[in-house]
């Protein structure tokens, strides 16, 4: 019989079926991360996603480039988050534009928005208005605190949500009067993945019943969902707060400095893992290892043991003795990690506008219907023509009119918004709406 890992590998490399979400139409009016990441995931698995932006500046995330670094005038963070999407720009202050937006949502299976709570109603595209013309719609509103309740109108952002949800005080050193946010916009990415789950559940229900629905999901509640500290608080009356590198549910645990000046994370969860480590460090005595002061003592013993060993040696011992241990990677090590390249969680795309560059691969590895990164996020209004023709059947002349009237528009000449300087509009059939994107 084939080795298990080779067998699974053969599945991952084996026969493929049609994309899982092919035929699913999604419209989004989204900005920054929470909203856009929902469309990103759906588009990775085959959905046709149309993103509506404001002419000129577009999604304000376009300008938020990492340390201000753009690439061929694009913000790669935006380009990745909005890969496989059709980007159009219509000015919602204009009545004709609102009509176009309305018609697009009418034709969609899923609509996603993360504007300020209630703004969609003012734009005439609230759930009630859309449901009347498209009862099958799955309508998703994303916000910091939810669509109703006294806090619903407060503005939110990842850090704000972490603060309001009580998450902020969990990360930091015990002996310092400061704490740190969960990095990389966890307060956006987590709720957005949860929202994708909600959308897929609603789609499954719709397949069985024909009924669409309204989904309200917030950053705060998504974070609070996994804060076991609330339950701990209700049982003990105490707030756990920040515990440095100790995971209080895993003892010993921490990030320790090795002899060769590197760092290793060790986290002991089960009795057998504890026994395995104890066979290497006999000073570790179990007792009640989870008890607060014991946990600290056990960690000190492990820290001392790690200090006398190189990282590689510890990782070898972890393999042999079966306890959780890992190196602590940084960005560069992740970007060039051979495992990630072999797995496909980082891969190279050849983008028509931006050329060849490495990007994160599909979020979920699937054997028969793998996700794809087909093209990267386009300039503001890039797919105006293509989508207005394809979805709404408008003619070139009608589209010319809309352009003249400022109903639809394109990018301002700013990094993050515009195409590469060498790009030639005349030669771009997709931009002119004569050809679809490939992939």
């Amino acid at each position, binding site marked *: 019989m084939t*080795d298990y890992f080779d*067998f699974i590998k053969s*599945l991952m490399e084996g026969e493929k*079926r049609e994309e899982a979400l092919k035929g699913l139409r999604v419209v989004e009016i989204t900005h*920054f991360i929470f909203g856009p990441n929902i469309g990103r995931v759906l588009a990775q698995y085959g959905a046709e996603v149309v993103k509506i932006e404001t002419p000129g500046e577009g999604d304000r995330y376009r*300008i938020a480039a990492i340390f201000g670094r753009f690439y061929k005038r694009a913000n*790669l*963070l935006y380009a*990745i988050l909005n890969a496989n999407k059709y980007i159009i720009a219509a000015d919602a202050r204009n009545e004709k534009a609102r009509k176009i937006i309305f018609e697009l949502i009418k034709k969609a299976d899923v609509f996603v928005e993360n504007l300020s709570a209630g703004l969609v109603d003012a734009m005439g595209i609230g759930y*009630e208005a859309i449901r009347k013309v498209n009862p099958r719609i799955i309508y998703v509103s994303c916000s910091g605190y939810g669509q*109703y*309740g*006294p806090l619903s109108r407060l503005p939110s952002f990842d850090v*704000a949500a972490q*603060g*309001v949800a009580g998450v902020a*005080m*969990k990360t930091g*050193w015990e002996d*310092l009067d*400061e704490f*740190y946010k969960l*990095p990389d916009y966890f307060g956006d*990415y*987590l709720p957005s*993945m949860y929202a994708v789950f909600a959308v897929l559940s609603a789609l499954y*229900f719709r397949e069985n019943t024909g*009924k*669409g*629905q309204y*989904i309200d999901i917030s950053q705060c*509640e998504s974070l*609070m*969902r996994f804060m076991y500290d609330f*339950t*701990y*608080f209700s*049982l003990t009356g105490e707030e756990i707060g920040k515990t440095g*590198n100790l*995971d*209080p*549910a895993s003892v010993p645990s*921490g*990030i320790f400095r090795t002899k060769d000046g590197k760092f290793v994370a060790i*986290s002991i*969860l*089960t*009795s057998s893992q504890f026994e395995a480590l104890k066979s290497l460090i006999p000073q570790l005595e179990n007792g009640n*290892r989870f008890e607060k002061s014991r946990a600290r003592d056990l960690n000190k013993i492990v820290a001392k043991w790690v200090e006398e060993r190189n990282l590689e040696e510890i990782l070898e011992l972890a*393999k*042999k003795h079966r306890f*959780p241990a*890992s*190196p*602590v*990677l940084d*960005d560069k090590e*992740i970007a060039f990690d051979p495992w990630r390249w072999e797995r496909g969680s980082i891969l190279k795309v050849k983008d028509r506008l931006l050329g060849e560059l490495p990007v994160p*691969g599909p979020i979920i590895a699937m054997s028969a*219907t793998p996700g794809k990164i087909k093209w990267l996020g386009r300039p503001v209004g890039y797919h105006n023509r293509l989508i207005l023709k394809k979805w709404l059947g408008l003619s070139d002349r009608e589209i010319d009119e809309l352009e003249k009237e400022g109903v639809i528009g394109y990018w301002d000449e700013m990094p993050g918004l515009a195409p590469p300087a060498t790009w030639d509009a005349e030669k771009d059939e997709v931009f002119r709406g004569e050809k679809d994107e490939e992939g």
Partner: protein
Amino acid sequence: MKRDEILIRLFSEENKPSALENVKVVEIADENFAAAIAGSLLAEMGARVTRIEVGDEAMKISPYGVTINGVGIPYLVESRNKEIVKFNESVKDLIFSADIIIDGTMPGFLEELGIGYRNVSERNPAVIYVAISPFGHYTSKAKEFKNVPDSDLTAQAYNGYPTLIGNPYLTGEHSYPLRAGLWAAWIMAGVNAAVGALIALLERLKSGKGQFVDIATNDAIAVVTTFSAVMGFLFDKPRGRFGTIDYLLYPFGYHKAKDGYIALATPTDADFRALLKILKRWDLEPDWKYTLDRISDDLERIRILDEELNKTLQKFTVKELLKKASKLRKSKLPFLSRFLGRPVIVKINTLREVLQDEHWKIRKSFLRIKIDGKEVIIPNSPIKSSETPPKVSYPTYPRVPGSQERGATPGEG
């Protein structure tokens, strides 16, 4: 009728079906909580989830060992709506007839028991098999490290998360990589796994076939958040600890006020100007006008602004800052407000403050259940959906295999 009232009525939970009714899920795991989280999400949406215990460690894992009736907190929370049974020969039928299998054991372990994907898919080609492990169930590294068990902290480390957390200006042990204070990697992996299960389930409606879905906890955050890949391409160095500052926007973090802490964000230049107005620090404007002025990989440069802002913020109480920010929000010219700007300022809450907040009570964000007469607070599903509201209950909890049955009465939301 007010918008809030309309929505509360729309989201009412009475007499509504669940989205995933009749979907049969088995979750096979011990201490891997990413698998338990994946199962929980499906269970919240009404799938019939049976958790099959392959060990007895999961229920002991709890912050500082705190348990209720011998059951740890994460286990209690993540056993929502689940049937829990011990692994034995009689549960094999359940496994072979499942729609979705969540495998949170070591790669290859279930195959050794004759219930791996190869075995199950042969008899049931429609099965969706979701594997959750540190390095996944394929690749050379997955094979090499197949015996190294999963944990949230090691997964955070391999995702590069702890190298980003902390104060960049500190030295000594405070410059070590620092863990995120909740199970960031396991949470993300669990949610990703539930998403993968449902993509496959929807596809199965068309093809009638199942497939293998693979989640690597060691990559669950990095593959979602996009930053490391971009850093690797654009820069020849990692970001480092930008915990108190940021690499996209500044300010975007936690700051100390006179009597407490605030979270502060100024997403646009207009928001930043509004902040300076509140703080009466116009002198900072010329040098730090644009987003691109305020972010830098040069820590010494950004420190100048950081220190000035911190110094000024500490002159105000949290209440004063909130009041000033909320005044800006009440501009009578909504179309102009975008150009006038409004910094996002909120108070950083303690758990007690969160639990007392009327907002979360109205939204039923927490459930209060009674176990042995003691009230226990459990976070609810974050999803509000109008036709198929998620449901969370612990009808006879905890029903620990092999122990006597204990009852829990669901309390008010």
